[in-house]
């Protein structure tokens, strides 16, 4: 089973990707390790934007810290700081 990855706003545009299913999960995967793998392996050209300090993450639609574990079937979102209202 894959991990569902979604990107929003400027990240979605810069990576030219709104979502993908990631099959390369390792047993100890965290938000931080997933982010590094995606930047390196999935987006070798544009991945640097994913590693910016300001990038936020959510797991299953709840804000997540870098050390949070990622399991099969999870939805992991990466996005820039929010600017609604």
């Amino acid at each position, binding site marked *: 089973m894959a991990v569902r990855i979604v990107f929003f*706003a400027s990240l979605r545009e810069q990576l030219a990707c709104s979502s993908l299913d990631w099959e390369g999960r390792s047993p100890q995967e965290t938000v931080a390790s997933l982010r590094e793998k995606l930047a390196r392996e999935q987006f070798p050209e544009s991945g640097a934007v994913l590693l910016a300090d300001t990038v936020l993450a959510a797991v299953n639609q*709840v*804000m997540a810290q870098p050390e949070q574990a990622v399991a099969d079937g999870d939805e992991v979102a990466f996005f820039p700081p929010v600017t609604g209202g």
Partner: protein
Amino acid sequence: MDIQVSIQPEDFDIAELQAALLGGGAGEGAVATFTGYVRGSHAGQALEAMELEHYPGMTEKSITDIVQRAAKRWPVMSARVVHRVGRLAPGERIVWVGVASAHREAAFAACEFIMDYLKTSAPFWKKEFTGSGAHWVEERASDVQRRNRWS
């Protein structure tokens, strides 16, 4: 506690929303509301349009959570939040927050709390279009400072 959150492309009717806050007739003595509009300029440049993107599902949950936290701090009787997404022109309404309570102090405070957290933690992103192109709006430190007053 009656909470309703709506994320929608369509405009909304403020009078209708405010009347719905008082539907129960449960002794509300005060309603505080906030309406946000698209400004006509950004950094001195005329704004042609704005596009608002959100994270379907998470955005609704995030706002509901913010309203529930407000209701734990103040005796809120009902609250509604409407936020538009999609393409908007200057002068159009973006967001509406309404809070009903027995007294004005709780209504004012809860309404401001909800807006301050919505701006800094609900997943929405604004893109502005001006004569010189499009750009994503950046997070403002002053918005974060305003929110941090509550913690």
